[in-house]
């Protein structure tokens, strides 16, 4: 329903622009025809395309969907309350856009063994995947994987870097 309305508005806009253009061109037509045959097509049948801003909320840099990271406490796999609105928003978007797919990438800080950290990162990715699943996102749209400690976003060996790397990212494909 909303889509139909949008289309009608766009069509009306295009129609009015075309009409407007043709009225201006009454005078121009004479001059243009004096020149070349190619330019003579700029007449009443011209289509002047109009591009509105993208209507995909995923591309809105100020929208909540621009937030694609969920941060975790040390040794924790619980999606904290402060990240629930982010997870909710992505769940709604994915439920409404069945064609979109995401990979949830779990990460850990650098401390400890690489393989165990890979499994810990998986636990974080899985926590986000389960939350999305409970909110109605289909399994076919999601894959939870882990980067463990292998692809740190923040370099360095201090608490700030570690906190930045205890994270799951939602990567749209």
């Amino acid at each position, binding site marked *: 329903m909303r889509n139909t309305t949008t289309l009608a508005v766009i069509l009306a806009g295009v129609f009015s622009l075309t009409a407007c253009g043709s009225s201006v061109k009454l005078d121009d037509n004479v001059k243009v025809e004096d020149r070349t045959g190619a330019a003579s097509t700029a007449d009443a049948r011209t289509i002047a395309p109009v591009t509105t801003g993208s209507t995909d909320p995923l591309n809105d840099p100020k929208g909540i969907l621009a937030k694609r990271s969920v941060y975790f406490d040390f040794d924790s796999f619980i999606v904290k309350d402060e990240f629930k609105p982010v997870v909710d928003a992505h769940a709604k978007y994915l439920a409404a856009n069945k064609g979109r797919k995401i*990979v949830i990438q779990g990460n850990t800080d650098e*401390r*400890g*063994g*690489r*393989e*165990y950290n*890979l*499994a*810990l*990162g*998986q*636990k974080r990715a*899985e926590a986000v995947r389960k939350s999305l699943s409970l909110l109605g996102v289909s399994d076919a749209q999601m*894959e*939870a*994987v*882990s*980067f*463990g400690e*292998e*692809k740190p976003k923040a370099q360095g060996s201090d608490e700030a870097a570690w906190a930045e790397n205890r994270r799951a990212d939602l990567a749209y494909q």
Partner: protein
Amino acid sequence: MMKNFFLRGFAVFAFSLASLAQAQLRVETSGVGATQIPIAIAGFADETLAPQQVTAIVKADLARSGYFKIIDTGNTMSETTPVNYGEWKAQGADALVVGSVQRLADGRYDVRYRLLDTVKASNLSGFGQVAGPDRLRVAAHKIADDIYEKLIGVRGAFATRIAYVTKAGNEYRLEVADSDGEGTQVALRSNEPIISPTWSPDGTKVAYVSFENKKPVVYVQDLTNRQRIAVANYRGSNSAPSWSPDGSRLAVALSRNGYTQVYSVNADGSNLRQLTNTNGIETEPQFSADGQFIYFTSDRSGGPQIYRMSANGGDAQRVTFNGSYNISPRVSPDGKNLAYISRREGRFQLYIMDLQNGQEMRLSDTTRDESPSFSPNGKYIMYATEAGRRGALAVVSVDGRVKHRLTTQTGDIREPTWGPFMK
């Protein structure tokens, strides 16, 4: 006296390193074995005409092992040179090594060696090998292996190889080198991480985890012909490969059904079987030496601990109890000991446990140790550590007495795996 030997040993070592301009790894040794056998090693006849000085490699191997005191003879002796045993005995040498390196018409070298017992005035061992110029290092390591075996009573592992991962800038490499870190060769280059390499029991393949497809996937690469197959590329993460002793199967850790669980799969990727089924982390599977059991890391008790189960799955028994973080189990080749990494007071260090009585011993004094790997003769453990904020490899004897460290000029070196005995 001991100090003298040590300085001299180090000088010999430095020389052998300097003579190999292409060497990428630097080795530093510290500590010596409980007992050291004094051994005189003469220069081999005509070895200076070959591209590699065979006795320099033999000396470095034996010195690095910690179980030999090298006596430099300062002269050249071939296997046919008459030997005055009393003279060598008087110099304190229990054994004498002589030999020759002759270039053959086809460009290869005939390397002959003899090990003499100066105390009994008799021939202990010796053999001849024909080696191409690019195999002279191996020929030298095989001589060191034979000396080690005849005098220590344990098979030498100098002629084995190691594989490890380097990271410099954005480039990750899986490299193969001789056990002394020399003769490095690149097996795989990638712009994405490579972890957990592990040699096949026959030494021709390496299984590893590569992130080249934006997620961890387990590959088996044939080192001899560049062929590689993805043996585990399921939904989720695929990691932690370990070979069965007969090389027919791999144990892996997969998250295809949620949390990471242990599975086994044929070496060609067929016949996947799930071995654990818990609501937690089950990872780092490692076959026991006889293939009957799998040791693995599980967080079922809250934090990571090491457990053991049948190679077909089923009930598991907990193996580690000290400390709240025990990971990366590796079973010794004789099946009697377990090496692992334990976190105690914030330090991640290498431990070894006697599996019969549960007695454990700390083998490292660094703080960020990872990924232990036994030498095939069970006498040493190589592991990843840190030196000057960069990844380095370290080797320690299982009694903790002898230590070496391997570092690169630039970048990190990590994830070592010690290859098997080979012909």
